[in-house]
C-alpha cells in the first residue's frame, strides 16, 4: 500500500476497483483497523483513528462487510442481527438480562429483517441459507450498527447475474445519507450503485473520477485488459 489518498464525504457512494492483488481488501483492513498501517493516517469523521482498535472505530459509526461471507453460521438470522445491533452501545456488557428482552433491539432487528424480507425466516440458522441470501444478511449486519460509513467488500461476489441485480437494487434502496465505500468486480453493480470511482493498481490509486469518466478512461482499460 503506498500513497493512497482517499476521501469519502457524507452520503457519497464510491467504488474502489482494480485487478486482483491491487490491495483493495488490504486497504479495507487498514481503514477498519484489522492491521495497523506502517505510516500515514486515517481520519474518521474528523478524528485521527490511525492506531485505534476496530471496535472503537465501529463505535464512531463505521461498519464493513467481508468478501468471504463472515457470518455466525451456527446462529439464527435474528441472533446474527441482534449481535450486530448490540455491538454498539453499552448493552453488550450486560450480563443480568436476556438479550431477547431488549425491545429496541428486537424492533430494530424486525425493521431490518422486514425490509429485506427475512423476518419470517428469522429462526433459521444462517448456514442453512443460500449463498446469495447470506450475502444480503452480510450487508444487513453492516447496517445494524446504524453506520454513517459502510464499507462493502465485494457484496456481489459469487452471485449469479440475477442475484447481483437484486443486490444492486437492495443497495440502492439504502438510506441516501449513508456513505458507502464499495469494492466490486461486477461492473454492472458498480456503475449501477456508485457515483464516483477510484482505481487501485499495485497498491496505489491510479485514477479517480466520476463513474462515467472512469468508464471512458484508457488507462483503466489497459489495466483491466493487461496491456498496461
Amino acid at each position, binding site marked *: 500500500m503506498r500513497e493512497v489518498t482517499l476521501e469519502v464525504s457524507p452520503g457519497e457512494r464510491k467504488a474502489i476497483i482494480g485487478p486482483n492483488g491491487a490491495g483493495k481488501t488490504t486497504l479495507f483492513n487498514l481503514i*477498519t483497523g*484489522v492491521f495497523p498501517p506502517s505510516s500515514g493516517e486515517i481520519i474518521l469523521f474528523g478524528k485521527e483513528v490511525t492506531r485505534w*482498535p*476496530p*471496535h472503537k472505530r*465501529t*463505535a464512531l459509526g463505521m*461498519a*464493513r462487510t*467481508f468478501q468471504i461471507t*463472515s*457470518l*455466525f*453460521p*451456527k*446462529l439464527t438470522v435474528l*441472533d446474527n442481527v*441482534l*449481535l*450486530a445491533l*448490540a*455491538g*454498539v452501545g453499552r*448493552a*453488550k*456488557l*450486560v*450480563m*443480568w*438480562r*436476556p*438479550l*431477547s428482552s*431488549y425491545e429496541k433491539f428486537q424492533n430494530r432487528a424486525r425493521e431490518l429483517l422486514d425490509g429485506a424480507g427475512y423476518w419470517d425466516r428469522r429462526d433459521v*440458522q444462517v448456514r442453512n441459507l443460500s449463498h446469495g441470501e447470506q450475502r444480503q444478511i452480510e450487508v444487513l*449486519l453492516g447496517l*445494524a*450498527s446504524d453506520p454513517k460509513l459502510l464499507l462493502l467488500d465485494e457484496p456481489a461476489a459469487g452471485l449469479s447475474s440475477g442475484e447481483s441485480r437484486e443486490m444492486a437494487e437492495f443497495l440502492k434502496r439504502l438510506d441516501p445519507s449513508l456513505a458507502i465505500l464499495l469494492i466490486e468486480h461486477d461492473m454492472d453493480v458498480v456503475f449501477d450503485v456508485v457515483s464516483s470511482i477510484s482505481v487501485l493498481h499495485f497498491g496505489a490509486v491510479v485514477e479517480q473520477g466520476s463513474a462515467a469518466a472512469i468508464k471512458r478512461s484508457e488507462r483503466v482499460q489497459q489495466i483491466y485488459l493487461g496491456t498496461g
Partner: protein
Amino acid sequence: MKRIWILLSVLALAAAVAPFTGPFVILLLAQILVLGIIAMSVDLLLGYTGLPSLGQAAYLGVGAYLTAILATKFGFGLGWDFWLVVLMGMAAGAATAGFFGLFAIRASGVYFLMITLALGMCVWGLAYRWNSVTGGDNGINMRGRPKFGIELANDLTFFYVVLGLFIASFFALHLLVSSPFGKSLVGIRERELRMRILGYNTWLHKYIAFVIAGGFGGLAGVLWAHLNGIVSPVDVLLPASVDALLMVVLGGPGTLVGGLIGATVVVFLREYLATMVQWWQYVLGAVYVLTILYLPGGIMGLFKGGKA
C-alpha cells in the same frame, strides 16, 4: 426453556428421594453437584466462548485451600460466616483467574489449552511444596463442617445446601449466557474477527468470561473442601482439570446442563462402577472416545441438533 424444566424436575426429584437413598448415595449426589458447578464454569469457556481450559482445577484449588486455611488456622467460616467464605472463595477464584487471564487470553485454541495447563501447574506447584501454608503433600485436614442453626455435618443438610448453590449457579450462568454479553461470547466462538468489526472489544469479553469462570471454580472449591473434609494437592493436579473438561465434552458443550450430565456419568463410573468391576477405566475411556468420535455435541447432542 423446556430444558430448564426438565433439569429442575430432575433436581427436585433428586432432592425428594435423597433422604431415602443410602448415606453414600447422598455423598455421591453432592459430589456430582459440586463437580457440576466446576464443569459449568468450564462450559462457559469451552462451550460458549470456544476456549478449552485445561487448568480449571487451579481455581477449585484456590477456593478449597482458602476455605481449609481459614477454617483450620483461624477458625473462620464454621458458623454463619460460612456464607462469607463462599463469597471469599468466589472472589479468590475470580482474582486468580483475573491474574492468569492476563497471560492466557492472548492465546486461542490449543495454545490456550497449553497455557491454562501450565498456569494450573503453577498453582499445583505451590500447593505441593509451599509447606508452611498448604501443608504440602499432607494437605489440610478439616475438623468438621460449619454449623449455623443447621448442621452441615449432616450429609443430607449439606446436600441441600450444595443443591441450592448449584441451582443458584445454574440460573446465574443461564441468565449470563442468554444476556447480550453471553451472546457476544458465542459470537466470539464462531467468528472473533467479525465481532471486533461489529464493535466488540473481544479481548475484554473473553477476559471477563475467564474471570467469571474462575469465580465459579472458586465456589466449587469451597464446597469441595467441606465435602471431603480434606484439601490436598491431588485436588489441583492435572487429572482433576482433565476431568472437568471431560465432563463438559461428555455431557455436551454449550449447554450448561451438559456439565451436570457429564459429572453424573464420570462420578457414577468412578465411584460406583469402580467398586464393582476392575475394568471401569476402560468403560470411561471408551465412552469418552466414542463421544468424541460420534457425538461432537455430547450426550445433550442426542436430544438437540446444534449448540447454544
